């Protein structure tokens, strides 16, 4: 090919570049500039690292972050535990006729918005809600029980919200797994556990890791579910950012928190990739 400007490439890549610069890079730069500025006691703006320092000095901020990160890892793991058998069933067990149908069934709840789904859970779980109504009716409970507004409800809501994002990569990873490998393993005396651990999971690892990254990031950045279902104890790091921006009018502090969220979550993902010996380039394929 002759050297020179490849117009085809320019045309196809410019929307992507414009998208990235205008909507991601520029706002991030603006956020960063805001994050490294703070008001001094006289009310004048100036350069300062105080916003970042406050995160580490004030226990409630880093503890909230730690809590958010730990819960996000837990949610990611639980999502994997629940989706893996589902994905295996859809791709390997059920007759191919029903595969598409089952995948659509899993997809269906995601046709309505997250808010509607969360409110649906709230109607089910609240003290005067559907589940309590039936438990009372069948005499399992004597007094209605508050099932909403605690960590268990919040984790359940988050797992439910993120299932799809784990399922899709797992489905495609499992589809490429040759059934003969599993049969051969049985012939050689493998049991369910050893086949899962030595054949299925190693084969699906890129899919698992890419699903986990998506679920982890979505959970960490979720605002709605922890806020609505977690109730009085459900402080999530995103809510801290919201509070800094909205309630305290401190955009500089909020930007610093936003940046820390980006850096720390990227660090956790890097750590996860190292631990599972995966490379990002391979995982996102």
């Amino acid at each position, binding site marked *: 090919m002759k050297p020179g400007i490849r117009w*085809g490439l320019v045309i196809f890549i410019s929307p992507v570049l414009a998208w990235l610069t205008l909507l991601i890079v520029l706002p991030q730069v603006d956020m960063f500039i805001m994050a490294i500025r703070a008001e001094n006691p006289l009310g004048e703006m100036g350069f300062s690292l105080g916003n970042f320092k406050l995160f580490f000095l004030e226990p*409630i901020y880093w503890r909230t972050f730690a809590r958010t990160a730990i819960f996000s890892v837990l949610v990611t793991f639980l999502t994997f535990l629940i989706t893996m058998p589902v994905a295996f069933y859809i791709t390997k067990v059920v007759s191919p006729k029903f595969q598409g149908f089952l995948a659509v069934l899993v997809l269906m709840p995601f046709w309505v918005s997250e808010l509607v789904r969360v409110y649906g859970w709230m109607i089910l779980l*609240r003290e005067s809600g559907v589940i309590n109504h039936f438990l009372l009716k069948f005499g399992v409970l004597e007094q209605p029980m508050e099932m909403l507004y605690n960590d268990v409800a919040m984790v359940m809501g988050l797992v439910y919200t993120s299932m799809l994002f784990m399922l899709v990569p797992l489905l495609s990873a499992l589809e490429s797994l040759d059934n003969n490998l599993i049969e051969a393993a049985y012939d050689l005396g493998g049991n369910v556990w050893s086949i899962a651990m030595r054949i299925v999971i190693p084969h699906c690892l890129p899919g698992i890791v890419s699903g986990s990254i998506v679920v982890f990031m979505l959970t960490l950045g979720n605002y709605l579910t922890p806020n609505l279902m977690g109730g*009085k*104890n459900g402080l999530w790091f995103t809510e801290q950012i919201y*509070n800094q921006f909205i*309630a*305290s*009018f401190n955009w500089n502090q909020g930007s610093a928190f936003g940046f820390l969220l980006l850096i720390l979550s990227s660090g956790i993902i890097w750590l996860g990739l190292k631990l599972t010996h995966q490379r990002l380039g391979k995982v996102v394929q």
Partner: protein
Amino acid sequence: MLRKMIALLVAMVAGFCFLSTPVSAETLELLTWKGYAPTVLVDKFKAETNIDVKVTFTNNEEMIAKLRATRGAGFDLAQPSQDRISSVQEKYQIYQPIDISKINADQIITSMLDAVKKNTNVAGKPHAVPFCWGTDGLVVNKKLAPNASDYTDLLNAAYEGRVSYRLKRPTLIAMAFAMGEDPFAKYSDPVAYKALMDKIGQALIDNKKLVQNYWSNGDALIQSMRANEIYVAMAWDNGGWKLHEENPDIDFVAPKSGAMGWIDTFAIPAKAKNPEAAYKWINFMLRPENAAIFTNLEKCGTASKGAIKLTDASVRANFERSFSDADIDNIKWYPPVPANLESIEGMVLDKVKASK
């Protein structure tokens, strides 16, 4: 191939431009609270002036954040509370001075207009006129919590798991009054104010186990009180009165240490595109018959002179039932909030939410 691609791209861009061309009818972008622009009145305004009112619902904090993000553009009229205007205006210049000559001042209660003009005065010019007012106090289920009479009952172990309030500044301030302090007197002294807020925050943390949930959405709170999940809540008077219509056991109670009085206003953002429509809407809403329609729907008093005579008897009865003369004298009206107090309060509220 390439030509086709380019043609497609051009067609797409042209399509977007066409779609985003504004329609020619005049509009008023209104940034307000839920319930402040009832459909009946929006339709009536459209019939009278041929202006479409586009309403965005929000609260004080988000209102300020939205206008700050655009430096006062995107909306023609906002409705912040009167105490949240002057310090925000000094710092971010998001409003324009209000031209009183364009306001039909005859239809506004004079004392309220003067108070709001004074409290929103920045650089010698008023920035808002009053629209409606109400109080924050207790909404109580009198059958299930017969003795709840002050904010301290939100910390009363007798109502464990049946209490709800907002994690917002009014809660901190009301609680301070209930503990015998005067937070407004400490507005000018950040150190003393911080000490007071820390003390209140600690009291809220110590009694966190009593709370069913911190409410943030008025409809959700009303739903929980209706279902008897909550017996005592700190909430707005009109919410309590709405519940009283459905269930006479539930009512608004003016707390012993004083209901917290607020006035919501009309203020015009700095870069409003259509301020003339904003003035028209202000004068329209404060016309007694329209203000009365609003009051009947929302159970919320307005600054309109004479509107009270046109409201339903039940609305007036609400007020007389909940407020004795002494209660009215005891209403604590919010003075303008000085800058930087919000971050002190924000820190305390974060700590309460994060605690176990």
